[in-house]
């Protein structure tokens, strides 16, 4: 009798997804899918709104990374008012970058301490009642304290610039609406109310050392688990080719590191990307046109970014990047679990960049808004915590949005996450008649490495149980569990 195993929803990811694993009569894996079953429709219902509303409205896509959507939309809207990213005033660019680094810093901290650490500290087969962030706080209170304060630091940066930790507003068409005062900056430097930026750097280094040791002690697992060849996509600095999170050229490589997308301008993205659809998921599957659906998909996010960049401009993070690259003798890294390590190097990079910016007097300037000649199309691309985020808008002569296309990071990672699920299904679950908690969690571990953001900011206490259902070939339920 062939069976279908459903894990629904996947836990400890932002939002909810569903995994189905189809077994044949011999309990061999026939196929595996990662479904996105929530439909948002943002691209459609933003049409008809004035273009200046876009950076505010799109934040509601997400309760975890609203700043990324805010800034990507703002960059696109800058173009509508006639400004390319480099045309903005230097203070406006720096304030936006500080906001972005704060956002990535807190999001990555959230992921590591709240989502990944339970698996790493307790083991993938540990009791799920213990293997969660509450368990981390109980058994490792010092680690929990640092995680809380690192996330808080990033959130305070966001609150400083946007007025709120979630869904605040900073960017206006052509710039930002307020500068930062010396008194506000001192909050992050004097260490009186919150640990200072130097402490953030120190703690970032600590968790990287923890992760390095973890890799040494668990090398076989970390090197092999959910590892598979893939393309890699990310922004790189337009001048240096270094890691870039706010504005740069799009670059992609194949699994061996050969360039497949050679530093293209953001405006031209539509010439290179297609999005296909599958009937079993609301999430599209982007790929590079010239490589096709089968070979043209790419991972995005920390691992991809470290694969495509030529270096990192901050010294401590660059040193860690070199150690990271040494683990693969400088070759492209296709090992999914190294995403955690890469994410922590980005935590350090963000901390260093925040330190540089917090000492920059340009933040206090009032040269905040520029104007240009009106256009009818704008493209904003940014590296969100989870990867490359694309916003494109077209507007009519009455300033109304007529077209919107969003390719979010998790959309790029759709095929990679499906690949990861198939890897686990084939290598861990294949041939086993019983589904253990540890095995189920490994499917989730593979997905969590991508830190997917499937839906956000819905709130209904008690309405999101974890359900597991086992079906036979006739669609009848063999087993059903709710946590």
């Amino acid at each position, binding site marked *: 009798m062939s069976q279908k195993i459903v894990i629904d929803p996947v*836990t*400890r990811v*932002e939002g909810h997804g569903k995994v189905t694993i189809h077994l044949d009569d011999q309990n061999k894996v026939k196929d595996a899918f990662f479904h996105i079953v929530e439909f948002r429709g943002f691209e459609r219902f933003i049409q008809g709104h004035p273009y200046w509303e876009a950076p505010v409205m799109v934040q*509601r896509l997400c*309760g*975890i990374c609203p700043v990324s959507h805010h800034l990507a939309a703002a960059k696109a809207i800058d173009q509508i008012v006639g400004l390319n990213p480099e045309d903005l005033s230097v203070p406006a660019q720096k304030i936006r970058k500080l906001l972005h680094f704060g956002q990535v810093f807190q999001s990555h901290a959230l992921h590591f301490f*709240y*989502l990944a650490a*339970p698996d790493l500290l307790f083991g993938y087969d540990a009791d*799920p*009642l213990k293997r*969660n*962030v*509450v368990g981390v*706080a*109980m058994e490792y*209170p010092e680690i*929990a*304290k640092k*995680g*809380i*304060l690192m*996330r*808080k630091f990033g*959130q305070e940066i966001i609150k400083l610039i946007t007025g709120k930790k*979630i869904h605040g507003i900073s960017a206006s068409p052509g710039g930002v609406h307020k500068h930062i005062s010396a008194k506000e900056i001192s909050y992050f430097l004097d260490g009186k109310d919150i640990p200072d930026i130097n402490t953030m750097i120190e703690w970032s280094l600590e968790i990287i050392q923890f992760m390095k040791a973890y890799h040494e002690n668990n090398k076989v697992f970390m090197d092999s688990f959910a590892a598979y060849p893939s393309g890699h996509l990310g922004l790189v600095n337009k001048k240096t080719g270094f890691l870039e999170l706010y504005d740069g050229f799009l670059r992609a490589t194949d699994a061996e590191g050969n360039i497949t997308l050679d530093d293209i301008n953001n405006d031209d993205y539509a010439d290179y990307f297609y999005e296909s659809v599958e009937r079993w998921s609301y999430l599209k599957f982007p790929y590079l046109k010239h490589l096709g659906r089968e070979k043209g998909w790419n991972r995005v996010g920390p691992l991809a970014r470290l694969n495509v960049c030529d270096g990192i401009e901050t010294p401590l993070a660059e040193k860690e990047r070199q150690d990271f690259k040494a683990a693969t003798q400088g070759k492209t890294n296709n090992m999914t679990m190294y995403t955690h390590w890469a994410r922590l190097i980005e935590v350090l990079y963000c901390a260093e960049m925040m330190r540089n910016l917090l000492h920059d007097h340009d933040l206090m300037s009032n040269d905040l808004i520029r104007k240009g000649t009106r256009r009818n199309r704008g493209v904003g691309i940014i590296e969100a915590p989870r990867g490359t985020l694309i916003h494109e808008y077209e507007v009519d002569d009455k300033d109304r949005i007529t077209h919107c296309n969003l390719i979010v990071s998790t959309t790029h990672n759709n095929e990679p996450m499906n690949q990861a699920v198939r890897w686990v299904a084939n290598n861990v679950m294949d041939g086993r008649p019983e589904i253990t908690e540890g095995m189920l969690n490994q499917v989730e571990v593979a997905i969590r490495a991508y830190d997917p953001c499937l839906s956000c*900011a*819905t*709130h*209904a*206490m*008690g*309405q*999101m*149980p*974890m359900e597991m259902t086992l079906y036979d070939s006739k669609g009848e339920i063999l087993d059903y569990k709710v*946590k």
Partner: protein
Amino acid sequence: MNHKTLIIGIGNSGRQDDGLGWAFLDAIESLFLENLDLEYRYQLQVEDAELIARYNSILFVDADMVQHPNGFNFEKLYPKDVNSYTSHELNPETVLHLAKTIYNVNPECYMLSISGITFHLNIGLTEIALLNLDNAIRFFKQDFYNSVTTF
């Protein structure tokens, strides 16, 4: 330690009556009462343990799908290790438990649950939720506020 009372409104105004927690804060803010700090939340997170550890007195306000007499329920909360499958939605008791474990504090804590009817994707409270909100605010002003501000 902060001697003000912290009120944390939990909810999402984009999901109809789930916005009750935030609407409560809006109403309280308009009263210009002293010694209150207000915080809006979509959901409680682990870092809220660090926030509440700074206060002696905390009131959580959230929408509730249970229909209570008078439209709301008020109760005292105690630290409790309630394991959840997800880490991006913690209940108030667990946040209290975290505060006690990590920061060694045990603040006075209460829950005000206001009954809602519908929680779909839409902006605006239902008429019943608005009535329940009025009742909850009246209770807050007459019974809760005077007692906590005389701690």
